[in-house]
């Protein structure tokens, strides 16, 4: 993980609450977003991602708390005077203007000469790969092109923060993947802080420096992608990011930074205290384990920690095979992912098998 000196905060959120009438949409958001960071707001539908983004842009008044942009309290500052720009989910391309007029829209008050303006627009269009499209009518563009125009239009103003509300959700899969890497490249190139709203966990993992996972108006965890994936702060985060197996466990004891845990189906395990994000009181708990940190042992293979079980379901994906395995003594199935390789068989449903496991990959929820 690349946690060097943390960048200077460009946005500070302090206890941000938002009510829509009686509905509590944001319930105390605290976060610092660094200069030049690619930051994602990730969460299921209705958790308040858009509300938070619009509050930063100035389109929603917050009920309490503070939003600081580059050290300045944004209370009462309208959207047109904030150093932020937004890429809307619908792209909001002005249909009555040409591509160049769209991109140059925000420069009207910049006091530039026409030639200077045309040059800036040309550069912005080059940057998003639309060089030479300036004279096109905006309503004749494809989805991907609209997206690029929206980006160019926002970036030409060199905002301190670029806000993107699910910018890729309207694109088809292939286009989306292409735009993901392009957005990332663009962000590095311009060095502007990007805040991306998405409900696609894979997209957030691929693109972000840090991710805030939101549930019901609260940040459940704020961490870099690797940490989020390896050490989810709660069962809910673990379930939301990627796939995670859960097995009931009993916390036996805690001594000198180590936790002794008994997991039916796997056996006894010794975990670091850091593997348990919450309190670790002795008693019932639950361990979380990613599918790739369990390994099917084929004939002749052995490992330090082995658990016997039976294959209940096989799902073949070509590059990977996913097995649902019932471990002996475990109350529920676990999913195991195995890369398909030459010489490696694919097990059949009903076969007996052995799984190798590693306590270091476990997360414990008290």
């Amino acid at each position, binding site marked *: 993980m690349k946690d060097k000196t943390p960048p200077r905060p460009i946005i500070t959120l302090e206890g941000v609450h938002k009510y829509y009438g009686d509905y509590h949409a944001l319930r105390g958001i605290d976060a610092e977003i660094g200069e030049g960071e690619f930051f994602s707001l990730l969460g299921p539908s209705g958790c308040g991602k858009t509300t938070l983004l619009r509050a930063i842009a100035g389109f929603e008044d917050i009920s309490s708390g503070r939003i600081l942009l580059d050290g300045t309290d944004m209370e009462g500052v309208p*959207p*047109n005077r904030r150093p*932020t720009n937004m890429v809307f989910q*619908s792209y909001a391309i*002005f*249909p009555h203007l040409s591509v160049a007029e769209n991109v140059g829209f*925000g420069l009207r*008050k910049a006091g530039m000469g026409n030639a200077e303006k045309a040059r800036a627009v040309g550069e912005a269009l080059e940057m998003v790969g639309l060089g030479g499209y300036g004279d096109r009518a905006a*309503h004749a563009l494809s989805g991907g092109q609209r997206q690029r125009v929206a980006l160019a239009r926002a970036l030409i*103003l060199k905002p301190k923060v670029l806000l993107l509300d699910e910018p890729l959700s309207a694109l088809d899969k292939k286009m989306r993947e292409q735009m993901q890497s392009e957005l990332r490249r663009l962000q590095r190139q311009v060095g502007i802080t990007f805040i991306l709203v998405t409900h696609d966990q894979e997209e957030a993992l691929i693109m972000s420096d840090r991710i805030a996972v939101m549930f019901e108006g609260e940040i459940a965890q704020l961490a870099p992608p690797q940490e989020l994936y390896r050490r989810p702060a709660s069962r809910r985060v673990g379930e939301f990011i990627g796939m995670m197996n859960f097995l009931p466990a009993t916390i036996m004891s805690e001594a000198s930074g180590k936790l002794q845990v008994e997991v039916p189906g796997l056996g006894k395990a010794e975990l670091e205290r850091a593997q348990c994000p919450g309190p670790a009181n002795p008693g019932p708990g639950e361990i979380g384990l990613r599918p790739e940190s369990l390994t099917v042992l084929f004939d002749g293979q052995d490992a330090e920690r082995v658990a016997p079980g039976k294959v209940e379901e096989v799902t073949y994906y070509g590059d990977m095979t996913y097995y649902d395995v019932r471990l002996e003594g475990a109350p529920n199935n676990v999913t195991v992912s195995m890369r398909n390789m030459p010489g490696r068989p694919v097990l059949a449903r009903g076969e007996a098998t052995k799984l190798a496991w590693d306590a270091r990959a476990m997360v414990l929820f008290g």
Partner: protein
Amino acid sequence: MKGRGLHIYALVYLVFLYAPIVLLPLFAFNDGTTIAFPLQGFTLDWFRALVTTPALHEATLNSLIIAISTAVLSTCLGLFAARAATRYRFPAKPVIVGFIMLPLVLPEIIVAISLLVVMLQLGLSLSIWTIIAGHTLICVPFAIAILQGSFSNMDRSLEEASVDLGETPLTTFRLVTLPLVMPGIIASLLICFTISLDEFIIAFFLSGNEPTLPVYLWGQLRFPARLPVIMALGTILVGLSVGLLITAEFFRRRGLRRAGLPDSGGFL
């Protein structure tokens, strides 16, 4: 042959609808003082008579002033109401909008009589201004209906994008909102103009001694000899109305094309 009956029905319907209108120009150019067949030859006398009737000119002028004022006034009011109705949430919105739209279905004679009573109670003398007020009342619902369509066709994040890019709400209205609803505005102006121009009942009750064109026409019907002149006038009015409708439709379609929207409905 189940299509047959429908064809006949359509034909009868169209004849019923348009035959009287076709009669207008027929008798307007007919060289005879009675409205009866057979036709007697071609003449432009009746049109010439139009030119030499000062009372008619006055009525026409009144009607134009009223129609233009009504169109502008109704469209402005409709613009505000339609924007509020599509953009903002406010308490009792359906009730308020419902009351504004009510004149659309109220019998015009009721509106006319109640307006007359109110005006007289207020001690206002009847003039073209009272007619403008009455016409605006019945035209605003049409303006709202047309403009609401324009506003709801328009993605509201367009206005937000403009503000986000540094424009104030006021310049946003000028640079983004107005151009995008302009086709609706033009359509509303033309429709309100047309409605006001041939409105009779309200104009009749509220006109005092400044008749509008329809009121003047009605007065002329007492003199059978004037009938062909009325036919000539009617011919001109039909031509104008059709022209206006076609213009309105043209602007509506151009607006849709510019906004890249599919065509759904319309007048023509």
